[in-house]
């Protein structure tokens, strides 16, 4: 399973990568902003995108919309990673067409397990 991590914070990318790849055994590609994420998604064909919400340049929701516009990336499930864990925000993000929402801070040891659960893959 290949996951694209999109986050402008290097701290979060590093530790999410540790959780997904070393602990969870997934393949990980990274992008530092929305624009870069679009390019990576087209070229690397990830099985899922873990997408930060608040990013400069192109934020998470706009990135999701652009991914959906491109037939090459429209089918990739997107999971938001947000520090705003309030119910209304989670509902709003889900209504944009995300497969699920994970919250920051997260436990790097269980991140892969949680991502699998959200995506419904064993």
């Amino acid at each position, binding site marked *: 399973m290949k996951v694209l991590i999109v986050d402008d914070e290097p701290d979060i990318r590093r530790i999410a990568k540790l959780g997904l790849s070393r602990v969870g055994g997934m393949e990980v590609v990274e992008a530092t902003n929305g624009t870069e994420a679009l390019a990576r998604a087209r070229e690397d064909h990830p099985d899922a995108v873990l997408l930060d919400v608040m990013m400069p340049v192109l934020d998470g929701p706009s990135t999701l919309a652009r991914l959906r516009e491109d037939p090459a990336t429209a089918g990739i499930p997107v999971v938001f990673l947000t520090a705003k864990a309030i119910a209304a925000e989670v509902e709003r993000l889900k209504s944009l067409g995300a497969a699920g929402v994970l919250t920051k*801070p997260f436990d790097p040891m269980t991140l892969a397990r949680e991502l699998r659960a959200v995506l419904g893959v064993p």
Partner: protein
Amino acid sequence: MSTAWDDELADLRAVYLREARGRIDDLDRALDLLARDGSDPRALLELRRGFHALTGSGATYGMPAVSALALEAERRCTAVGSGPAVASDLKSWRETVTGLRREFAAADPRAAPAPEAPARGVERPAPSILVVEEDAAEREALVRALGQESFAVRATAGLDGAVAALGPRLPDALIVDAAGDQGAAFALVERLRAQPGGDRPVVLVLGRHGGVLDRVEAIHCGADGHFTKPVDVLALVRRLRFLLDREGAEAPRILSVDDDPQQAAFLRTVLASAGYEFRAIDDPGHLESELAAFRPDLVLMDVLLPGVSGYDLVRSLRQDERHATLPVIVLTTQGELDARIEAARAGGDEHLVKPVSPALLLSTVAARVERGRFLRLLVERDGLTGLLTHTTLLERARGVVAKKRRDPDRQASWVMIDLDRFKAVNDDHGHPTGDQVLVRLAGLLRARLRQADVVGRYGGEEFAVVLEDLTAEEAARLVERLRADFAGIEHRSREGASFRATFSAGLASLQDGESVSAWVHAADRALYAAKAGGRNRIVTGPARR
């Protein structure tokens, strides 16, 4: 045991900590800009981004306090919007930044040693206690008893006075009489708890009735304990000391016995981020030695272990009276009734089913650790002085000897302290006054030594201290200061007569390969020499082979 990703996680955390300083400096810069122009859009955005990033990353890197602080500041950013930010906003953000800086400094292993270990020989400030008691006689009795324990006590009669006396600097503890106007007493406690920092002080409520409901109500309104009048002062002091020490105490130690490295890594992540000291062993054969060396406050035991059942391991542990009070949580994968019964029968205190949610794990561990520590305090501490009992003292000394065997460079001194002509104090002034002198000496030792130091009551008027990591000369200097200070204390008998007391001390440093009994014997001989030499003095024993 350590796994590859454990090490990687530690490396990432080190990078995160290194970069934290830059982030905080950025926040400071943004705040400086806002101080000039509260609507500076770049500064407002910068600030919000900075706090937002820390909210998400703090707890992820094992620092939940960072996330909590940053989240609150981030919320304020959202509320302020495009500004202007006013003085109270800036003040609150500055406080957050100061708090964040402190959190990062505390987490940085290269930083100065944590402040909870003050240098030995330097007196810690006495905990301040506010007593609110209407009855004048009971008030005075409490103040006297607490004063002897080296607490800084203030007292007031009425609840009105108490509100004023609370003042801006809250006391470390509040003892409030609820025998009269219970409602007003509880309101005072609630008021204290609502103040900034009001969750910190220890609160004990004194009631006329010892009914369960009274206790429950007291605890519900925010008290840490409830005592029925007439108050058992020794029990109250014991509880008070336990609750006050809790804050400065060492981080609780958790030992996990689990052969699954991923499970151990999970437990480590959750518990270490909550401030516990964590150690894991995958081989049950090492349990005995780890119990002695690590001295855990709690054991997490997996039931499926190579070659042995976790239940049997718990049973064998319970047969050893040294571990009678040690909390054990059994972890199983199956949640059936059978497993639960088996865990209880083996002597496990609690049974959790894997996968355990971090929140359940943390709350269970916290509750068990606190109860276990209090039980241990009752068992291991002398009822009068609160110092270690004879048995516990020797048990700790065995740990020190074991450390020396592994690392011969370690230094340790045994100091045997004996009050001079104590029988005369009892004969002249009565036993209660004699007890007061013992309590004063215990209080002095406790105030001057580190919490981790081994300080015990060896016998009637004989005390013992094990000083680690000091040379014999340094230890002797420290004890000499204690001697001089104790000799200067004026004691007062019940009849009002004032007198002074002194002690003699014998000191022996631990030699290579020496047993506990030989070490104690050497200190005893030195003590004898101090007595023979005229008392009120310290003698260091000669080096032995």
